[in-house]
């Protein structure tokens, strides 16, 4: 064997070992989620234990966590927020690029500046305004509105760059001559052309909002409106002695994302890179 192939084999071996290390925690929780509580502590590494492996944990965790309702809440919050973010940010960016009004330039600068403000700095005033003054906590709408507000600067920034760089104004002028108003021009001509940016933003925000914990946990304090991360955190608190149920709950929280990832892997990876590099 030449030195080259030895090196190649060695690299592959290292990659496989690292891969196993990265996957190990997932393997462990899946394996143990099918076991009896005592077998989890006594024989955590083996397949099965004194009692046979069972899916009973999942049935119980599903019920106790109120999984369907929680899943639905997460879906509503993430889905509505992402749709509104895409719609309103793209419209806003469009007018910012095409109309050089003073207010547009000022607002765009303000948005860019605001991107350095971390969530923790506005967290306390946010709760004091929306909880104390408006009494608007515990509604999914409030959370959706806040997700929109927090996502606007970055989304506007990305659409802004794309429109300025890649959408020729001549198309819009032609539409205008043909008698299309600004709304029609935007939705029929400009918006379809922005698919790459839209895809990136949908992926970034779907992941981020689905996993978000801190903001939802402050806004949604009623069982009926819990999202998945909040439910998992409470489930852990309630069942910290029942590893069997907790592990099943954790696996159920991960499965939707993994399925999505397996289906859209190429797009997700491209989207995440595009999002990071542009910002």
């Amino acid at each position, binding site marked *: 064997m030449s030195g080259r192939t030895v090196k190649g084999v060695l*690299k592959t071996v*290292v990659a496989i070992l690292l891969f196993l290390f990265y996957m190990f925690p997932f393997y462990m929780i899946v394996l143990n989620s099918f076991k009896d509580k005592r077998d989890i502590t006594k024989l955590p590494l083996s397949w099965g234990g004194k009692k046979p492996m069972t899916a009973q944990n999942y049935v119980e965790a599903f019920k106790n966590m109120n999984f369907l309702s929680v899943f639905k809440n997460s879906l509503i919050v993430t889905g509505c927020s992402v749709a509104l973010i895409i719609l309103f940010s793209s419209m806003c960016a469009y007018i910012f690029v095409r109309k050089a009004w003073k207010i547009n330039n000022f607002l765009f600068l303000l948005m860019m500046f605001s991107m350095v403000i971390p969530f923790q700095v506005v967290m306390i005033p946010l709760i004091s305004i929306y909880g104390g003054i408006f009494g608007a906590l515990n509604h999914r709408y409030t959370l959706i509105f806040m997700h929109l507000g927090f996502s606007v*600067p970055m989304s506007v920034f990305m659409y802004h760059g794309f429109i300025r760089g890649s959408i020729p104004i001549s198309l819009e002028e032609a539409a205008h001559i043909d008698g299309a108003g600004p709304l029609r021009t935007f939705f029929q001509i400009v918006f379809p052309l922005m698919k790459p940016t839209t895809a990136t933003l949908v992926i970034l925000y779907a992941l981020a909002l689905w996993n978000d914990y801190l903001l939802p946990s402050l806004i949604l304090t009623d069982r009926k409106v819990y999202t998945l*991360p909040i439910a998992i955190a409470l489930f852990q608190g309630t069942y910290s002695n029942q590893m069997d149920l907790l592990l099943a709950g954790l696996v159920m929280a991960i499965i939707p994302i993994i399925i999505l990832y397996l289906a859209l892997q190429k797009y997700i990876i491209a989207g995440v890179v595009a999002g*990071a590099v542009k910002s």
Partner: protein
Amino acid sequence: MNNKNTTANNVGTFLIFAGPAVLAFMAVIIIPFLYGIYLTLTSWDGISKAKPFVGLANYVNAFKDAGFWSSLGLTLLYVAISVVLVNVVGFLLALLVTGKIRGSNFFRAGFFVPNLIGGIVLGYIWQFIFKTILVYVGQNAGIGFLQKSWLSTPVTAFIALIVVTIWQLSGYMMLIYIAGLTGVSEDLREAAKIDGCTENQATRYIVLPLMRSSFTICLFLTITRCFMVYDINLALTAGGPYGSTVLAAMYVYDKAFVSKAYGVGQTQAIILFVITAIVAVSQAVINKRMEVEA
């Protein structure tokens, strides 16, 4: 008349297109930000209507608060170690999978998986690994440093926090480094080799300087994320044992929502933000100066 019409038209267009986004942005970020600065001048308890004006007392209290400074110190240590290790590991992973190995897409996808999952779930998963799996392995294989749960002593719990951070973020940074590595044209690499460079020398002297912008991005992202880390801190150690791993974001949260000292909590949030901004921006500026063009 005509002029008036255009103005009315313009206002209408502005409201339709920018209205909703600007309203949400103002209501959620700008107004709370300004209101937050006002809050630092009051001693609000979070419940009563009254927000007594106290001037700069919160700033004095925040500076005198030993707990805050020790959590800030711990956060700085955590950020320094995590940022270096996350980026080293992320970069090495990128080198590994862009090298000529089979199934590199498969590895790439695998290393990125931890990033898809929220900090809360990741924290609980690792809590199980540290508390049950590693202790079991330690006791059965007689490995001394694993026999007691890492989460039960302050130093090992802090290390556990860093291990999980690396595991979570390195795959993300790997993706950005891959984009940087493959962005450097193959011709340059070839030319360097014809001039007598070895593979490693070409990477060190040609590719690395040209992908410095990837380093700027990755450092910026890891610094800002690590400074503000909360979910993993909460789910993995919950600040324990005995409050020894309370990082700054959690300290601020507890100050406001647990101790009900909203004014002091908000003041500390702003101090934390200023420190993060200084570190992140100066890093970006220094790195930008060192970037070179092909």
